[in-house]
Structures are given as structure tokens and as C-alpha cells.
């Protein structure tokens, strides 16, 4: 079965020859027409459209955006803030970069519609520090939109005013976690806040109700308001509506970004038919399906899933439809849509050592299990790779990883332990044998750590 056609909604103009990030080009392509229509409607109606659309957050957790908006405390009398999470920093994720660099006005239009729908007067785009050009492009785009009265005071003569500012991060992964991001935007270390009581919808930025949405999520809002929530919900599959942008990296012939209806393409179709399969002479071995903290899948693996009527069905790894729910049922997650592919040249101990070095570097250090656990997982895997592997290392690693999840303030505790837990569960033999394997690894093997 060959792969279905891409359905490019968010990426409609990405990589299109002659499409430029300036407002004139955007306006020629119907830009800001949807905002123009949106501001004539009651905000509550727009929020209902988003709820009906079933849109789930595209940043990682897949939480329904309409529900997130409905949790906002609208009676506190305090201002409501909206923060665009453009701190794309989960390894394997690179979709938002293209939106920001090639179609910044799409994001600004989606953001302004979302602000109007939620009575937000001040929005911030928190963009990762490593995207200086992206930050400048967004600043220019906001200035252009302000000059045309799409941003700023009295938008399109409606009496509604809203400002957007770009705020640059400075290289810390944890700022992608929404309460860490809020701390960072307040000018502090990005230590995530404890929930309860600090749910952003109630006690967010400056202790005011705050919405934090991913770049892609806010772009979807623009299209939901355009076509209507009910119509949008027909795209994709039930409970996994709309399109998703998959970013494929690693060992395939054609890495890149691809936009498909959620759940309408399988893992095998994406990696073999769309991305061209493995490099010549290699075989695919493993894939991390949703950013590097998602649990790894092994090629050849089979899953037994429950049907609604209580019966079960068997699903091969290649046949997993790429949606939130099936990936979760298979013990992993759709996460940020970033797939990292590894072929049979990769030794899994070495790959895990690379991942562990990342999480150990990025722990904010607030909670002991994450700070110490990520550090020890890094130390153990790194020591193994550098010639001091021991027979008992697999058990030792498992012992450390199992003590982290559920014992930390934010999900980074889970995020840093899932790679170790899943690599051990799926490729345990490579860890058991690494003290032997290491001796036979070719000297010119590609270093991963």
C-alpha cells in the first residue's frame, strides 16, 4: 500500500518558489482575511469552534486546545496573557522553524485570532535563543502587521487592542515546559512550577490567567476559524483531528517535513514510501516517534491492542497509524511529531548515551530525582561507551531510570527516563553484551558520544 497524498494546510506555502515572508506576499495569498472575519464574531463563538474542531496541542502533550482555553479563569478581573511557545527544543523537532522563517504572518494571524477569542490584550512569542533570524523575522512581521492595523490599538476599527512582543530564550531546553517558560519570561531561571496551584490557565504569567500554545497549534486555529470547527474535525481521524507535520531525521533517504492528515498515514508508509526507506545497504532498526523523550520503537515489533468491543487485535510496528491515541496505546507518544530514525549501523548503547548527555545537560536541577538521575544515566552510559562497560550496567541503569518518573515537578522526569527505560526494554541484549560488543566495534564506527 503506497502512502496517501500530503494534505498541506499549515505548510501550504512552505518551500513554494516565490513565496516570501513579507506581508505583501501574505496578503496576496488571502492573508488576514480570516482575522478580518473573526473580529466581527463573538469571542465565545470562536472558542466553541476550536473546541468543536477537536484540535490537540502540537507541542508534545497533545492536550485539546479548546479545553485548555476553556480552563482559563475569565472572572479574576486580571489580564489574560497568551504566550506562543516557539521554544522548539525537543531533539528531533524542527517544524516550527519553517513556519517562523517562511510564513511568519500565518503564525501572527493565528495568534491574533486566538487573542481576540480569549480577550487577550498582550501576547508574547517566546522563541528559542538559537533562532536569531527567526526572532528578527517575527519582529519585522509584527511591525508590518501593526502598520496595517492587524496588531496594536483598535484593530481593524473594532475597538479591540492587542500587542505582541518577541521574547528570546537563551538556550535552555526546559523553557519549552510551559511553567518553566513562564518563569523564564518573568526574568528568572526556568524552574518549572508545581501544579497545583500554578496551572497557567489560573496562575500563569505574573500570577494572571495565561494560555501557552505551540506555534503549529496557533496556526491551526487560523484554519479552524476559516473552515469552521465541525468541518475541520472531518480532517484526520476521530479524536485525532486535523493535519500533523512530521519531521523525519536520521537514517532515511529523504529526511524532512511532511504534513499528513492525523492518523491517515502509517509509520511504515512515512518512513519507506515517503522518506525512501533506509540508506543503501542498511536496514531500519529503531525509530523514536515523537521527539527524543518518546519511547523508542523497534522494527519488527508487534503490539496487541484492545478494540472498543473488548476484543484484541495485533498491530505490526510498521502499520501503526500516526495519531496520538494509537502511538500511546503502543506505549510511546506522538509528542512533537519529530521522528528520529536509526538503522542497523547504530549501537543502541551509544545512541542512548547521546540522549542521556542531552537530558543531563538540560535538567533545571530543581528536583533531585531528575537532576541526579539524568546525571547518573549519562555517567553510566558514557562510561560504557568509553571502555568501562560492566555486566551489571543494564540492571543499574534500569534501577536509576525507574526511580525518576512521577517524582518530579514537571514532565522532564518522565522525559529523561523514558529513553533509558525503553532502550533497555527493547534492546536489552545490546546493553547486557556491551562489555563484549565494545571490543569488536570497528574503530571507525561513527561516534555518537
Amino acid at each position, binding site marked *: 500500500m503506497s502512502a496517501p497524498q500530503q494534505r498541506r494546510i499549515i505548510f501550504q506555502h512552505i518551500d513554494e518558489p516565490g513565496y516570501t515572508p513579507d506581508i505583501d506576499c501574505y496578503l496576496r495569498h488571502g492573508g488576514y482575511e480570516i482575522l478580518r472575519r473573526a473580529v466581527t464574531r463573538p469571542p465565545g463563538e470562536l472558542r466553541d469552534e476550536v473546541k468543536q474542531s477537536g484540535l490537540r496541542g502540537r507541542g508534545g502533550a497533545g492536550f485539546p486546545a479548546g479545553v485548555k482555553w476553556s480552563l482559563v479563569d475569565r472572572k479574576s478581573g486580571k489580564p489574560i496573557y497568551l504566550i506562543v511557545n516557539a521554544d*522548539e*527544543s525537543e531533539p528531533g523537532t524542527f517544524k516550527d522553524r519553517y513556519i517562523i522563517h517562511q510564513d511568519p504572518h500565518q503564525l501572527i494571524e493565528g495568534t491574533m485570532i486566538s487573542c481576540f477569542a480569549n480577550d487577550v490584550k498582550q501576547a508574547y512569542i517566546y522563541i528559542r535563543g538559537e533562532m536569531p533570524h527567526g526572532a528578527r523575522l517575527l519582529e519585522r512581521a509584527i511591525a508590518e502587521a501593526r502598520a496595517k492595523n492587524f496588531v496594536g490599538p483598535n484593530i481593524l476599527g473594532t475597538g479591540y487592542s492587542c500587542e505582541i512582543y518577541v521574547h528570546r*530564550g*537563551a*538556550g*535552555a531546553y526546559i523553557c519549552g515546559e510551559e511553567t518553566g517558560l513562564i518563569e523564564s519570561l*518573568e526574568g*528568572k531561571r*526556568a524552574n518549572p512550577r508545581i501544579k497545583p496551584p500554578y496551572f497557567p490557565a489560573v496562575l500563569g504569567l505574573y500570577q494572571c490567567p495565561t494560555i501557552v500554545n505551540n506555534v503549529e497549534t496557533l496556526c491551526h486555529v487560523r484554519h479552524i476559524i476559516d473552515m469552521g470547527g465541525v468541518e475541520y474535525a472531518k480532517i484526520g481521524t476521530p479524536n485525532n483531528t486535523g493535519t500533523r507535520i512530521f519531521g523525519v531525521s536520521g537514517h532515511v533517504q529523504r529526511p524532512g517535513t511532511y504534513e499528513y492528515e492525523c492518523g491517515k498515514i502509517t509509520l511504515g508508509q512515512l518512513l519507506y514510501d515517503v522518506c525512501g526507506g533506509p540508506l543503501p545497504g542498511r536496514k531500519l532498526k529503531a525509530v523514536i516517534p515523537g521527539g527524543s523523550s518518546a519511547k523508542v520503537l523497534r522494527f519488527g515489533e508487534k503490539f496487541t491492542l484492545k478494540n472498543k468491543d473488548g476484543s484484541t487485535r495485533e498491530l505490526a510496528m510498521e502499520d501503526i497509524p500516526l495519531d496520538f491515541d494509537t502511538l500511546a496505546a503502543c506505549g510511546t507518544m506522538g509528542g512533537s511529531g519529530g521522528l528520529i530514525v536509526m538503522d542497523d549501523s547504530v549501537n543502541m548503547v551509544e545512541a542512548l548515551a547521546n540522549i542521556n548527555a542531552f537530558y543531563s545537560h538540560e535538567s533545571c536541577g530543581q528536583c533531585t530525582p531528575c537532576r541526579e538521575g539524568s546525571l547518573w544515566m549519562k555517567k553510566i552510559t558514557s562510561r560504557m561507551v568509553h571502555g568501562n562497560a560492566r555486566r551489571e550496567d543494564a540492571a543499574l541503569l534500569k534501577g536509576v531510570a525507574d526511580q525518576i518518573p512521577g517524582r518530579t515537578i514537571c514532565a522532564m522526569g518522565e522525559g529523561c527516563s523514558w529513553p533509558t527505560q525503553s532502550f533497555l526494554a527493547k534492546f536489552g541484549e545490546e546493553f547486557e553484551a556491551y562489555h563484549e560488543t565494545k571490543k569488536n566495534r570497528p574503530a571507525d564506527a561513527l561516534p555518537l558520544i
Partner: protein
Amino acid sequence: MNLKPETLLRIDEAITHYPVKRSATLPLLHLIQEDIGHIPDEAIEWVAAKLELQPINVYEVVTFYPMFKRKPIGRRHIKVCRTLSCALMGGYKVCDTFKKEFGVELDEVTPDGGTTIEFVECLASCGTAPVVMIDDDLHENVTPEKARELAAQIKAGTAVRK
């Protein structure tokens, strides 16, 4: 610490973006580092005074975020991505190539004060791995050969700053 008049203007403008001054900490540190290259003690005290904070409030921020440098680095800053997708496509070899070309270890400054190489975590361009940032510019699909070319351009002072 002598900040350019233009930096001072941009600093005053940045502060107006927030209802609470402390929020301007990161923007101010970015502006200062862009101007003078790093964040000395003096800058920490200056930002604290400017934002009506204690120096410790600024110091703890500077030390938390990897992009802020406490000591001068080279005029040209090479950041090679270390994380998984880049490593799978040869990121470590690219990093080694740069180190050899400039004869320095990571985070050092070449003797002429020209260049610093840093091995950083994910640069969010995994689909075109391995990637390298030179100053503000991203270079994609960087092979060791391409790294040698980029190094030669930097040494010749011809690497284009966009």
C-alpha cells in the same frame, strides 16, 4: 562597561514591553552580550540597577542559560550541534574537523582571539543534519569537507555575515 548609544536605546525600548521590569532581564542580557561580547560582573550589576533587582537575581539567570558567556569568546563563534539526529549523521566528526582546523579545544579561544568552537545541544534543524551555526547563521548538511571550507573562509575573514 561602555555600551553603544544604540544599545542603550534598544534597552530602554525592551523594558517597555513588559508590565514588570524584571521580565526584561533576558532581553537586556542579549543586547549587552551582542554589544560587548560577554556578560562581565559589571554588566550584572548594571542590569540589576536598571531593573531594580539585586545582582544575585541577574547572576542566577546568567549562569542558568547556556547562551550567556561570562568570559570573552572569539569574534567568530562556531556552534556545532551535538544532539542525536546530528550525531547520527556525523556531527562528532564535523566538530573534530573544526577543532583540528583551528587547533583548539572546545570553548577555548584561538590565540589570535578570533574563533571559539562550542559543541551545543539541539539547534532544531534535525532534518538537515548535521548542522552548524556560525555567529547567527545556520549551515546545513555540513560534511567534514564543508567544515574545512567554512574554516578556511573564517580564517581568510571572508565567511559572509548575513
